[in-house]
């Protein structure tokens, strides 16, 4: 008598039946599920018989006999639970779990950061008491995949009697290509001039990290009465030109214009 037969001889009819069925199913990782499912069926039938007045031991034998031939059932289940499909299913499950985890860590969280960054990062931390004038705008230009949006210019002075102050340009930029890699962008390579042609040097700024970068650019020594700011970018066949009529106190208003010069979108 081998150990299985010995075990069968000493166990209940349900256990014997289940052991015979499972011995036909080669994909052993499914044995627990199959055993539980068959056992539930047997228990249900056994309960029905006992409700009809059949004694416990007889009810179990009747319930097992209703399940049919153990070998036939086992072979049918073996076809349904083939090892090849079973392994592919298990491995695909692991792969899907890992991919979902990595997707959450590597993409969903950065996307969440992108959504929140306009609220977390603020380039507009200019002391309110130094503001002489500010004006909002919505001017877009594009170079390659990068979209640059000018939001606001703010002119500040620490000494209100001085002729010059600092012009803050608040702007955003993002890449249309949905890929969190590559290099950031600043306006430091731009040429800033006013209506007289005088050039102003990039004197500082701020750029937030993230796919949507909120930025500020500062131009020191900017005249209080300047009427127009020109921003020109021209590098490696990428160009754009932005013209911002400024609104110093007491001046009129004018349209803002920004254009991508030929070659500005080098896509």
């Amino acid at each position, binding site marked *: 008598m081998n150990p299985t037969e010995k075990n069968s001889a000493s166990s209940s009819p349900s256990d014997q039946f289940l052991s015979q069925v499972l011995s036909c199913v080669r994909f052993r990782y499914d044995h627990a599920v199959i055993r539980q499912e068959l056992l539930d069926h047997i228990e249900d039938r056994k309960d029905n018989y006992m409700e009809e007045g059949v004694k416990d031991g007889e009810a179990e034998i009747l319930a097992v006999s209703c399940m049919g031939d153990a070998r036939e059932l086992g072979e049918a289940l073996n076809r*349904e*639970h083939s090892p090849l*499909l*079973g392994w*592919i*299913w298990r491995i*695909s*499950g692991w*792969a*899907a779990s890992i*991919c*979902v985890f*990595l*997707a959450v860590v*590597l*993409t969903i969280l*950065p*996307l969440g950061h992108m959504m929140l960054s306009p609220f977390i990062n603020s380039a507009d931390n200019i002391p309110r008491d130094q503001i002489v004038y500010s004006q909002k705008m919505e001017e877009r230009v594009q*170079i*390659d*995949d*990068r979209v640059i949006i000018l939001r606001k210019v703010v002119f500040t002075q620490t000494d209100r009697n001085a002729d010059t102050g600092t012009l803050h340009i608040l702007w955003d930029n993002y*890449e249309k*290509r*949905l*890929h*969190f*890699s*590559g*290099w950031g*962008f600043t306006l430091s390579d731009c040429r800033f001039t006013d209506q007289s042609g005088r050039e102003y040097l990039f004197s500082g700024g701020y750029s937030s990290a993230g796919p949507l970068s909120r930025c500020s650019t500062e131009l020191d020594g900017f005249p209080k009465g300047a009427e127009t700011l020109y921003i020109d970018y021209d*590098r*490696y066949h*990428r160009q754009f030109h932005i013209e911002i009529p400024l609104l110093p106190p007491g001046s009129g208003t004018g349209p803002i214009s920004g254009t991508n010069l030929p070659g500005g979108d*080098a896509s």
Partner: protein
Amino acid sequence: MNRKKALIRNLALTAGCTLLIYTVSGFFFVPESAFRVSERSSHYGPSEIVCVGDAGSAQYFFGSFENYISLTEIKRYYLPVLWTIGNQYLGHRRDLSQALDPQYSSHVLSDGLSSAGAGRRVIVYGYVNDPSVTLLELNYGDGHVLRLDLPDPDGGSSAQSLQRRVLLPGDAAAAAALPSDNGVFFLFCFIQPPDSSAVMYYRWLRGLSSDQTLLYEYSPQTGVTIPPPDSSS
């Protein structure tokens, strides 16, 4: 759920998430894709790839864009199949009036311990514009001299043959040259140990003729020394 349906669901999830990770995360399966994204996000190029150096942990793309040359480092990202953008040196304008037109860059080799790392990988690259120069010598300190015979600008090896031949993993020093449409592209690579503070980048780069006559010498510290800077020839 039917096992086949679950399998289809798992495969769809795996494919979708892989696509999402690849698209959004900043990793690349192909180093050249990373190189192209690096250039485009810098608003430069697209360059023609002159050659690719493989240093094991990184690949170096040497690009030519109009009259500019560039060097872009593409690093392995943990898994061997994933690449990410490393350092980048763009827009060195070629000086065709110079017989030797070298550029150089260096990267600290991380050892995960100190800022000095495991030394620096120094890369010296550029063009030889004078066809009478047939041999380059680079002294990178402590008497170490790399020699490089230049190919005929009108023939010889091709870009394909140079690719992946240089900067092999474990090489302490390597050199390669490649004829191009306008001059000969050259490349030296060597590792400076962390305590090598005496030499910044390299001591000198010399161009010699076929009879070993010294025609040109360039030092990163002093510039061109041979011929003398005031020489009209």
